[in-house]
């Protein structure tokens, strides 16, 4: 390669005017044998070259990393699921407990009915009689009250009758 061309490129390089391609060209050039006066610069470019080849030399790096990544992933999900289900369980527990207590309260407020009497005909008859008697009492009372209404009606009719008679009388006089 033309050494003048290289010198020009080098000058551009020191002034930071070289493109990436030109810098690559310089690197290529300094990989080969170089004139004595360019030894330092060559060492620099070779240094850059060698640095780029440097690698993360750890055989278990990828494996350790993947392990850490995998450990991280399921952990988060399990915690989330536990939260999710415990929420539902808590809700159900509240509903069940509430139902239980309400039922107990209802039972206290309405004690069970007196033992039913269907198995004993005599007792059943008595109960029925009692019930019927109560109804008939109520009936009688109502009839009495209704009788009072009759008296009122009669009185009203009488008054109306008298008034009509009077009206007739006065009509006659006129």
């Amino acid at each position, binding site marked *: 390669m033309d050494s003048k061309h290289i010198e020009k490129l080098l000058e551009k*390089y*020191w*002034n*930071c005017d070289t493109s*990436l391609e030109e*810098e*690559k060209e310089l690197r290529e050039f300094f990989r080969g044998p170089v004139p004595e006066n360019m*030894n*330092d*610069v060559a*060492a*620099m470019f*070779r*240094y*850059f070259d*060698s*640095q*780029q*080849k*440097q*690698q*993360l*030399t*750890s055989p278990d*790096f*990828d494996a*350790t*990393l*993947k392990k*850490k*990544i995998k450990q*991280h992933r399921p952990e988060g999900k399990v915690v989330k699921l536990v939260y999710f289900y415990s929420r539902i369980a808590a809700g159900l527990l509240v509903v069940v407990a509430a139902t239980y207590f309400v039922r107990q309260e209802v039972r206290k407020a309405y004690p069970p009915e007196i033992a039913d009497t269907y198995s004993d005909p005599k007792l059943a008859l008595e109960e029925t009689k009692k019930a019927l008697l109560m109804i008939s009492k109520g009936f009688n009372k109502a009839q009495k009250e209704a009788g009072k209404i009759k008296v009122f009606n009669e009185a009203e009719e009488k008054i109306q009758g008298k008034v009509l008679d009077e009206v007739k009388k006065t009509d006659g006089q006129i």
Partner: protein
Amino acid sequence: MNLEVFENRVLPVKNKLFRFAFRLLGSSEEAKDVVQEVLIKVWNGREQMADVQNMEAWCMRITKNLSLDRLRSRQRRATDPIEEGVEIHHETLTPHERTEIHENMQRINEMIAALPEKQRQVIHLRDVEGYSYNEICEILELDMNQVKVNLFRARNAVREKFVKMNAYGL
């Protein structure tokens, strides 16, 4: 992003991340830790990353930030000798020439390690990794002007050292 995409697109960048972290920290063990931290971060944040355009530059930026965090907590300049991967394997060289090359490399490594932090970052990204100016801006969160100024200073610091070395025959 599933594990397969991660392995194909993100994991191969690990060497670049390692070199950058190593340049900043000067310790391969710590650089390795940083790279692992970066990759786990990327994996955990993969849902938010759907709209990241340049995944590689993004990973490099996280590497820079985590490395600088470590550096700050450590407060030590990275001037350790080069550890691995700098040997040039040239069959035709004599042992003497080989040690000379190694010495030269060592010297350049020290020169770059002695640069201020920003200049060191820029010269590494440009001259070792071959990133474009735009990508360097993105990685370092700097504007174009700052990137160019830092690169110019870094390259010229190296050049001046060469001039001095030749003048005094060091």
